[in-house]
């Protein structure tokens, strides 16, 4: 059997998308009433839930409090049922810790933390179903949850991955495509074009970086449009409720 083709001569990917197309995105805000903010997102078969508490007073040791801005606390976990193989994932595993750290960095850059000195914002994300692009789904869910909590942000944070089929960049890689070639993950503040996080796995020739980065950027902007619609829909819903 020949290895599967990433991109056919006709220009379709294995799952039927064209190179620049994203997987199907569905999102909802305010899924939990008790939390200050929450959101649920589906990107393809990847499903993620984000919950935000805060800003509130420092919990635990007060010595960690920052005099000039809020502390962003992130936790990332994967549900035991999130993969085909049922496996327990302790909270403290290395990969989860790393991802949490990335999330923290991303959101410290996006939230206007200086408005809330000496306080704390908690962001909890959980992957309910993992099917590629876990980090991206977490960022996108967390963005919506932070907005749901009414915490002011500089901009949306949108994250998306990109890969390469020979010379053609592929936006939002599906797990099938993960076997081939390098992967680039980008978290972007679309309005300003600021990069919150850029991660590259495997070697990539510098000549190709630009194309891949451009594709990931395009994908982030497309995602931004989708998320923006979700936020506006939610806003309309809430104001309608209040109006009644």
């Amino acid at each position, binding site marked *: 059997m*020949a290895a599967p083709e990433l991109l056919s*001569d006709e220009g379709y990917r294995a799952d*039927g998308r064209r190179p620049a197309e994203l997987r199907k*995105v569905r999102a909802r805000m305010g899924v939990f009433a008790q939390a200050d903010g929450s959101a649920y997102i589906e990107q393809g078969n990847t499903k993620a839930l984000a919950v935000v508490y805060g800003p509130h007073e420092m919990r635990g040791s007060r010595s960690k409090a920052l005099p000039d801005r809020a502390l962003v606390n992130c936790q990332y976990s994967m549900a035991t049922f999130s993969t085909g193989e049922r496996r327990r994932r302790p909270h403290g595993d290395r990969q989860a810790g790393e991802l949490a750290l990335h999330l923290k960095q991303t959101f410290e850059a996006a939230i206007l933390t200086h408005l809330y000195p000496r306080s704390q914002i908690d962001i909890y994300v959980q992957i309910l179903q993992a099917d590629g692009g876990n980090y991206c789904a977490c960022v996108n869910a967390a963005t919506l949850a932070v907005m749901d909590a009414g915490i002011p942000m500089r901009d949306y944070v949108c994250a998306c991955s990109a890969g390469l089929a020979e010379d053609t960049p592929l936006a939002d890689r599906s797990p099938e495509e993960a076997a081939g070639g390098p992967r680039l993950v980008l978290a972007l503040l679309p309005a300003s074009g600021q990069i919150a996080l850029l991660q590259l796995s495997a070697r990539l020739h510098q000549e190709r970086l630009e194309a891949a980065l451009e594709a990931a950027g395009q994908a982030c902007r497309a995602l931004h449009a*989708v998320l923006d619609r979700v936020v506006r829909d939610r806003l309309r819903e809430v104001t309608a409720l209040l109006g009644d």
Partner: protein
Amino acid sequence: MLTSRMFLKRTRAGAVVKVVREHYLRDDIPCGAAACRLCPPRPAGPGLGLQAQPSGAASSLCPGPHYLLPDTNLLLHQIDILEDPVIKNVIVLQTVLQEVRNRSAPVYKRIRDVIANPEKHFYSFTNEHHRETYIQQEQGETSNDRNDRAIRVAVKWYNEHLKEIEDEEKIQVIFLTNDRTNKEKALEEGITAYTCEEYIKSLIANPDLVDRLACVSDEGKEIESGKIIFPEHIPLSKLQQGIKSGIYLQGTYRASRDNYLEATVWVHGDAEENKEIIIQGLKHLNRAVHEDIVAVELLAKDEWVAPSSVVLQDEGQNEDDIANEEEKENILKTSVNKDMLRPTGKVVGIIKRNWRPFCGMLSKSQIKEARRHLFTPADRRIPRIRIETRQADTLEGQRIIVAIDGWPRNSRYPNGHFVKNLGTAGDKETETEVLLLEHDVPHQPFSQGVLSFLPKMPWSITEQDMKYREDLRNLCVCSVDPPGCTDIDDALHCRELENGNIEVGVHIADVSHFIRPGNALDEESAKRGTTVYLCEKRIDMVPELLSSNLCSLRSNVDRLAFSCIWEMNHKAEILKTRFTKSIINSKASLTYAEAQMRIDSATMNDDITTSLRRLNKLAKILKKKRIDNGALTLSSPEVRFHMDSETHDPIDLQTKELKETNSMVEEFMLLANVSVAQKIYDEFPEFALLRKHPAPPPSNYDILVKAAKSKNLEVKTDSAKALAESLDKAESPAFPYLNTLLRILTTRCMMQAVYFCSGMDNDFHHYGLASPIYTHFTSPIRRYADIIVHRLLAVAVGADSTYPELTDKHKLADMCKNLNYRHKMAQYAQRASVAFHTQLFFKSKGVVNEDAYILFVRKNAVVVLIPKYGLEGTVFFEEKGKPTPKLDYNNEVPSLTVEDTTLHVFDKVKVNIMLDASNIQHQKIRMVLVEPKILGSDVPANLPTEISSKNEPEKKKKKLQK
């Protein structure tokens, strides 16, 4: 956006894990018909799509306009038909393409080429992602059945869809399938379906096409001639299990060139034991064809055999005469020494067929009006093929191409079909075409796409070109080459420096300046890999404008070069090395003889001559150093043909004499290659393209040691140095040619030198040159490897920028594989060309008697070398229909006793040489022993001989093949 699109999920059950994959269905995939206004416009894709008014051959079965839609098996088997220019407007479904891709890479490549051809109007329809043509596998349905159904659904959709196009004449889609059940189902569903044969036979005015139909019999048809000859092949799934559990071994099947009843299977993997398995006898060979990937089962040890030294050719006429074969098989089973027994096995199944179209000739059936004939391939490792044709009379005496379709169990020979006629056998053009095709040498003229990347003429050097270059036009550079050389890729200079040291420069044509990575020109050169030199023809790797003009370092013109410049002391020790892109202006293009004359002349003292003398002096020191290190100097006689200027027929043969200046140029090229190899390896430890020459396994030398021993000489083979020294000492005053013979024999013991990527290997050693590291830098006009090396070096010295493929070791490794293959094939093509010209030569020369030496002794033949012509041939001692003389073969010495004459290796004999044109099918050179006279044989006895000339043609610069 995608969110608006409905999607289904397709579940693939894995071994343990359930995998869910998204499968997006679209409504924006066009049908490809030019007249359609319902579908969105066709996005950029391969080919031009289907014509509004389908042109193509008229069919009596379906007179109206129609498109064809083949199923997978039809496409796999009848690709020759689909490739015919007559067949146009074909819809290739994604389902079909995917299946083809998984089953045969070569056919997939061919159908892809057809789809991309704008004149063919083939259209690939992505039916698996079209909302209306995607279907899900039903419970209990096999994936084959599901795919067949998907194809029928697509046909139906097309027919509905095309009806909606508002045109006067409705276009119909015709489903082509050879599968009976599939056809029945299609007809039930109201689809117009034909078998390929029905459709092709219905074509008006194209009767020839019928011959090209592959004869794939339905399962039913095979029973017809009853007798089963071969054991059944075990199905693939069982083979894979067997291979995993170790019952079977997987390997590449290599048929023997000399014996059609014997083959060797090279087992894949790293197993030390049973690496090479011998297969003997028709039933054990079990329909495997040369180069197939097969599964073998080892026989019990008491059934093991030794490789036979008998030469056997399949001469059976036409019919499935099996009794005769068994008789022949018994010849193989003569008693042999226990030590000679090798692992022996039988083929139990085929993992992958590697059939390609074969060149050869028709052996017309003796039965009048017969439609079935046997085809004899030019390559003797390929079995004869039975084909059906009505044009046997026209095809007789022609070189034709035939493809194999299948090999049923009841058939002595595989079945195939006629593909193409190349021309009359014996014609120089036809034979050249044959040998190029047989050796897979890409030799079509360069396409417009490729030529478009050539620099525009008139060409001149611009400011931009000078940016990273040194101007070396003031240096006294000259080139030394064989006479008539138009592709000069190297030049030299040498001057004394003020500090008393010597500066030596090697300047190589800067081909990588003109061939930029990734464009069509680059891809074509990479595919060709090397320029191929035949006796009177050169198949260029790069277009002539580059090879003979812009890149050729001719005298008195400015040329771009890549220079390697050393500072040396008078002991030829390198003090400094530097590399730079440069611009040079050669002061003279000399031949070896002219350069030699200048060096030897007492009167000439100009700049060029003095630098040549200096270079020559240094070269001698370098050569001595190299030989002291254990480098081998081996010889094989080089032959050149003197061609008649009008008929271009060879009129004389001459062995080439080597001048001191050949060796002078060679020394500096070797030195440059070593210096560059070191530099690119230092800079790119993972991606350097290098060349290595592995040391041969000790057993390879057996033949040499035995042969030397028979002349009371000792050849030491424990190291290259010991070998070189013992070869130097192996002189016999009474037999001056002995040393050359020993060296020729030594070359036969050697391994092939190969290109490799430094990141993928640990052993870099070049045995023949006794160098720890080596590469090819000096001939970028005619070798692609050198272009890559130039690019690496250019990046290393900051003269050019890198690109992704250059630093991808897997891509480099793949490239090395192709280059090694092309070089091997080029070498074989050269030999074949020499062999053909030798035949032409003896055709005009008539019968001659010449002195010869025995090189190898076989069970029923001896291989002799005729030094005068550098010609090698086999003298047989048995022939069909004649009493076989008493033969006694002794493997230990080795020697062969014919009646009461004993022949040893290196014996000087006299042979009678003549061209045997009695069988136009295989013209051959017959050699018969004249001296010593064999009892009971008359000279000229009609003993058949095959010629296999192992010598190199007059190809440019033999030195660089190291």
